[in-house]
């Protein structure tokens, strides 16, 4: 069940009605309903993996309590590592086993040995990377005594399995979401209205931007050897907007849906393509994952407090692991590595926190500088996205090489009967709308909100792509 499906359009009002009109006696009934709805939502993909989700939830719930109750450090450590190893074990088995087995076999083959790895014929459980990270952060926080263990299983289950964030985040923290599920939610008109704005704008991003860019990006990336420089540049730009529209659109819908139930989720995107450097980009892109890695990997490794080599090491670790989190493929690792290379000069020159203020543009020289730095940062991210999208690292390198060597900048007709330049106007309009509303969560609120909402609905219906129905990209992660 996708957020942009008819099934979800039926599911959501039913759950909303039951939540506010039938199960609204107290927080326990509200939470019980949300749990049932979440498990149903998850089982729509594959009910068999529901057992994995429940097991993972129970494991973290139980180990969390045992860690807190543990009288000796040895006992606390035992439950802590049990949870970490089982969580990462499942993730490793389902997501990374085949990658490691085949990579190891390739290594042996290149060394002259014959190797035929035993590969698992398993599909990746939807959302496993997200709910595993929910559980991990919870257990780590209890171990380091930042939070208390949750003794109410229903409340804890809701924290892990809450359907708006279950399959593609944002990756919530117990400190943020658990206190909210511990109290009865009261309906708030303004919050619910904001939720509707976010849902509508998220749908614009998904069906108008992402799904419309997808066939163009696919046609260009899949046939890059016959594309000219102009089409290849457009392909990278289209993919940049595809993945942004897809993932931030999903996050907007998730946040909006959650607001309808009176629960506030962490913001995941903050107009990342208006970043003035890569450090700012990573403060604005997939914020919940970046901050997760910062808090649970980068800082425990020593962060930027150690010597030069420690800074370099930690930067590469966090970016490469972040890339690898996205999928078991060398292209994701390369994508993470490239971002580390981008980030490192900023860190070493202590300028990674230069652009913390709001972006201002006026008619002066500074504004030209700001505008250039935004364009430059976007260019860097597009280069990195080529690695993210390409099938192999070789394909990515050849793609980039062809941009430079082909030198043909004419319009091209793609094999899916579209001209490569067709989307430029639409993307331009989208960028302008986002730019003019960059201080707000979404562009629809404020003055003339009803008219803006109507125009957004019109855009979804008239310009949206529905028949080339596509999943959300981040579901595969």
């Amino acid at each position, binding site marked *: 069940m996708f957020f942009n499906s008819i099934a979800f359009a039926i599911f959501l009002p039913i759950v909303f009605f039951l939540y506010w009109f039938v199960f609204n006696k107290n927080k326990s009934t509200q939470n019980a309903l949300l749990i049932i709805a979440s498990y149903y939502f998850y089982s729509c993909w594959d009910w068999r993996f529901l057992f994995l989700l429940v097991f993972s939830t129970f494991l973290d719930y139980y180990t969390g309590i045992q860690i807190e109750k543990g009288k000796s450090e040895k006992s606390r450590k035992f439950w802590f590592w049990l949870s970490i190893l089982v969580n990462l074990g499942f993730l490793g088995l389902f997501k990374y086993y085949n990658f490691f087995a085949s990579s190891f076999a390739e290594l042996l083959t290149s060394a002259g040995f014959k190797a035929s790895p035993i590969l698992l014929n398993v599909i990746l459980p939807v959302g496993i990377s997200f709910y595993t990270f929910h559980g991990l952060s919870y257990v780590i926080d209890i171990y380091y005594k930042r939070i208390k263990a949750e003794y109410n299983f229903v409340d804890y289950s809701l924290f892990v399995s809450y359907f708006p964030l279950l399959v593609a985040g944002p990756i919530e923290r117990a400190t943020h979401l658990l206190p909210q599920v511990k109290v009865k939610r009261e309906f708030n008109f303004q919050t619910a209205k904001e939720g509707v704005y976010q849902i509508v704008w998220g749908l614009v991003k998904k069906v108008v931007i992402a799904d419309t860019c997808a066939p163009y990006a696919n046609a260009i990336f899949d046939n890059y050897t016959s594309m000219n420089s102009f089409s290849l540049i457009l392909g990278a730009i289209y993919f940049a907007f595809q993945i942004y529209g897809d993932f931030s659109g999903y996050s907007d819908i998730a946040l909006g849906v959650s607001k309808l139930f009176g629960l506030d989720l962490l913001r995941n995107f903050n107009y990342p393509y208006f970043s003035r450097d890569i450090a700012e980009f990573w403060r604005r892109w997939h914020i919940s994952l970046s901050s997760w890695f910062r808090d649970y990997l980068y800082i425990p490794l020593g962060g930027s407090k150690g010597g030069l080599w420690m800074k370099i090491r930690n930067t590469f670790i966090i970016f490469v692991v972040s890339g690898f989190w996205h999928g078991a493929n060398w292209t994701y690792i390369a994508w993470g590595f490239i971002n580390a290379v981008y980030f490192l000069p900023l860190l070493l020159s202590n300028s990674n926190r230069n652009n913390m203020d709001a972006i201002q543009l006026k008619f002066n020289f500074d504004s030209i500088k700001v505008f250039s730095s935004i364009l430059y940062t976007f260019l860097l991210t597009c280069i990195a996205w080529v690695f993210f999208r390409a099938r192999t690292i070789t394909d990515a390198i050849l793609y980039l090489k062809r941009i430079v060597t082909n030198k043909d900048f004419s319009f091209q007709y793609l094999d899916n009967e579209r001209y490569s330049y067709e989307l430029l106007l639409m993307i331009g309009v989208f960028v302008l709308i986002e730019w003019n509303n960059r201080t707000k969560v979404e562009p629809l609120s404020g003055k003339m909100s009803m008219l803006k*909402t109507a125009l957004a609905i019109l855009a979804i219906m008239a310009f949206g792509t529905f*028949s080339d129905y596509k999943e959300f990209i981040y579901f595969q992660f």
Partner: protein
Amino acid sequence: MKRFLIYIVKIFLITVLIAFILDGLYTYIFLQSHNRGKIEQVFNSNAQKYDVVILGSSRANNHFVPQIFEKRGLKTFNYGMSGGHLFEASLMLKLMIERKYEIKNVILEADLNLSNDHQSEGVSAKFLPYIHNSEIIKNHFFNEKDFNELYYIPFYRYIKYDNKIGFREVCKIIRDDKTNSLDNSGYYPLQKHKNGNMKNNIVNLNPLKHNKYYEEIEKLCKIHNINFIAIMTPMCENVKGMNYFEKVQKLYPEIYNYENVVKEDKYFSSCGHMNDAGAKIFTAKIVTDFFKK
């Protein structure tokens, strides 16, 4: 909560209003279309006179050369549609009859397409803009499982088939962009492909005992005094399950089997589709056999 419910009702009503406006606008634009494809051309046309009308899938579209018929003085148009099934061929003929076309002969490519009587969504979608403007189209789709949504929900059909009849197609109609589907009197010549797939496997394909739309076309021709010629067209030699054509012959003895008239790979673009040279040999044979002067 009451305020929110009123707000949601307002959003819903706005959505419905937008759907009605867009539906009307798109339909109006499609009603002006005349050079985008065969369906639009027939729907938006007046009475025509044809000696020969060709119907079927791409194996009709790429195999029958109207110019060869015309050399014999037979006014011909190839209404074969790539990807189309007999569902669409039947509807096309009904539309022509509704528009009072005077047709002497219908040549129907009837072979592989006898194995199903479903619609081909990619092709049938092109009829949907006119579903409220034609009883024929409405009735033809009436038994389809999503008829109610397509017919009663405004703009639903344009959303469901947006890659066929959506915004891009509307823009092309407004810009008066031509397609090549009406060139060469509807015939689309194929070239010899270097890497054309010269193998096919139709072992699992079986003709239906009663293909609803084949029988419908046959009946329509009978009622309107149109000479009905059903033909099996050639495939390359390297096909597994070639006895399919014999099965067709058993079930439908009136269909002429021309499957083996052209055999050599050099006359094929891919296994199921002859190239221009093959199509010309094949059409010449058909013209000689059926339209002797």
